[in-house]
């Protein structure tokens, strides 16, 4: 018995790229908010809230890779978990393939769980150490009844091969693999259910450069082969620029800029991003050319605590271009018509640009 070829789920999307991606959005998020309560005092009352995600809206088209970048604590991982409903949002709407999924019950959510998957940063802590690869993949395939039970073994073989592992990997435990191989397992686990949408939460951050390149290439190949749509979370703008179609720059739970990755740098190498924070991120990234030594952009201070958000623009405290207005009023995320930009949307939340 041969396994049915792995392809995306029921209403399988054709492998789209570039211009064809004008199709209907697969994921639409509107005004998503997540506050975590902070308890304290002898009665353990709620004494405040950590504002992890503050009114984020985004759209991911079918076949697109949307990057989310920001420093630790900016809410990018929380955002990834929210759109999969691994945690419940405080408010806001999440539409997946036209269906509002925020209010769905456990059973109603089940088909969506199969269609939306996640790859975590640390594949070691996200894989069960007591299960072999075969057991792990079989469980997922059985539970969601992705293939007939007679086809399960063949499907597992196929998955292992697809992510570039040797066939004998099937009967090994997670600890027997290197970091890069474990990340391949994480990808195999996500792919097993033939999802349409995968959230990749810092999938290459813990890997060495040469392994990082292998895993990125693997993901790009699988994305094209299965017509996947990805939300790619990373703190490394270089990886995002290389890998994604569009990028969302987050700071303290807010989106401060949203643009096509191609526009991050202009033809002449100058920076095409507008928000001072995006510019700071680009400027702080050391260039790997000793002839282009330059003082790195150094922002003063640390990211403010999301427990106690400043009034006005969240970035105002560290921004080299901050004005009085920035400290009192939150700038809205608005479309910037840029010259020669064509149809690509470019949104910035800043009073100074």
């Amino acid at each position, binding site marked *: 018995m041969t396994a049915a070829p792995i392809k995306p789920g029921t209403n399988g999307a054709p492998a789209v790229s570039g211009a064809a991606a004008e199709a209907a959005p697969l994921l639409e998020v509107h005004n998503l908010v997540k506050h975590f309560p902070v308890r304290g005092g002898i009665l353990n009352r709620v004494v405040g809230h950590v504002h992890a995600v503050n009114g984020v809206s985004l759209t991911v088209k079918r076949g697109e890779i949307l990057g989310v970048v920001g420093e630790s604590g900016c809410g990018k991982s929380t955002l990834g978990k929210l759109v999969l409903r691994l945690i419940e949002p405080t408010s806001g709407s999440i539409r997946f393939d036209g269906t509002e999924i925020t209010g769905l019950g456990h059973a109603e959510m089940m088909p969506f769980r199969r269609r939306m998957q996640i790859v975590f940063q640390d594949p070691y802590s996200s894989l069960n150490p007591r299960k072999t690869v075969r057991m792990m993949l079989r469980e997922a395939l059985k539970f969601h009844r992705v293939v007939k039970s007679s086809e399960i073994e063949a499907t597992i073989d196929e998955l292992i091969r697809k992510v570039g592992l040797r066939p004998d990997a099937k009967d090994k435990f997670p600890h027997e693999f290197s970091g890069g191989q474990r990340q391949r397992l994480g990808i195999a686990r996500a792919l097993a259910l033939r999802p349409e949408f995968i959230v990749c939460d810092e999938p290459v951050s813990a890997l060495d450069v040469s392994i990082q*390149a292998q895993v990125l290439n693997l993901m790009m190949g699988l994305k094209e082969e299965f017509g996947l749509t990805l939300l790619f979370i990373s703190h490394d703008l270089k990886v995002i620029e290389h*890998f994604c179609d569009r990028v969302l720059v987050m700071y303290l739970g807010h989106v401060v800029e949203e643009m096509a990755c191609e526009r991050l740098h202009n033809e002449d190498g100058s920076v095409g991003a507008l928000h001072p924070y995006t510019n700071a991120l680009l400027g702080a990234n050391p260039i*790997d050319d000793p002839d282009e*030594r330059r003082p790195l952009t150094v922002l003063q201070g640390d990211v403010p605590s999301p427990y106690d958000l400043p009034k006005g623009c969240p970035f105002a405290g560290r921004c080299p271009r901050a004005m009085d207005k920035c400290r009192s009023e939150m700038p809205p995320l608005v479309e910037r018509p840029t010259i020669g930009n064509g149809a690509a949307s470019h949104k910035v939340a800043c009073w100074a640009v």
Partner: protein
Amino acid sequence: MTAVDDVSFDLAAGETLGIVGESGCGKTVTSKSIMRLLPERTSFIKPGSRVLLRTGGRDRGDGLPPEVDLATADPETMRKVRGARVAMIFQEPMTSLNPVFTIGWQLDEALRYHTTLGRRERRARAIEMLKLVEIPNPERRIGEYPHQLSGGMRQRVMIAMALCCEPDVLIADEPTTALDVTIQAQILQLMEGLKKRLNTAIVLITHNLGVVAQVCDRVLVMYAGRVIESAPVRELFHAPRHPYTKALLESIPKTGRKEHGKRLPTIEGIVPSLYDLPKGCRFHERCSMAKERCIAEEPALVAGEDGRQVRCHYPLGVPATLTVGVTA
């Protein structure tokens, strides 16, 4: 198991040497061997190894001879060297700072041991060091515990601790790896400033080639416990001689529009285990240019006339005559 095999380098005052390589290549073991921080029960430095520290430049009244071999020095001498002459910054500030003491106490420790300053003077010095690494409110922070600081601040405290005795050599083991880019930029700028002010020699261990390009003078590339190439930073980036160095440089995502969405060149396979090293060149299984000779015999580290070193039978960009001369 030999974790680090025949690693040699010189470092002058005011110079920054970068040691790069992937996990498990022996970068950290090299630095810990210099400091003699590896557990003596389970590991040893091979007799005949030498780590010469020339202390001649500055007299500190610590009674050290002008030249000390750290590989064989007795514990008493090592105590005088560690923290005062040679200091180290570790990758993980949370595990290297003691959680049950205030940062002031920990800063004070080195001063207490290595200087004759009184209690008030030491406190003033500790505050001054915290100011130097740009910690806001040092008078208040000095009484706080490591968990009360952010990751970037903890790393800056580590740097302040390492520098409070103004060491001649600073070994920084992945000092910015766990940090955000904006904080990384702050730390790098800080280290650069301190080098200029105190003429400290720095060994910067990292796997981030961008950081190397920006701050190092010379680079040592390591692979599976061996130095495979050593060169001044510009030459290394523009004309790498070892195929591994070249492949490593190519596999970094590049900024700019031209590269967007392309496949990255990769190095196939993974770093060999040190328990099971391949015969011949340690890189031959992953090398796109490997020939029969690479499988049969391990190349020696050969110094060129231009002061560069490479461990390869068929180095890139080297005229054939030179290669022949090497074989002879």
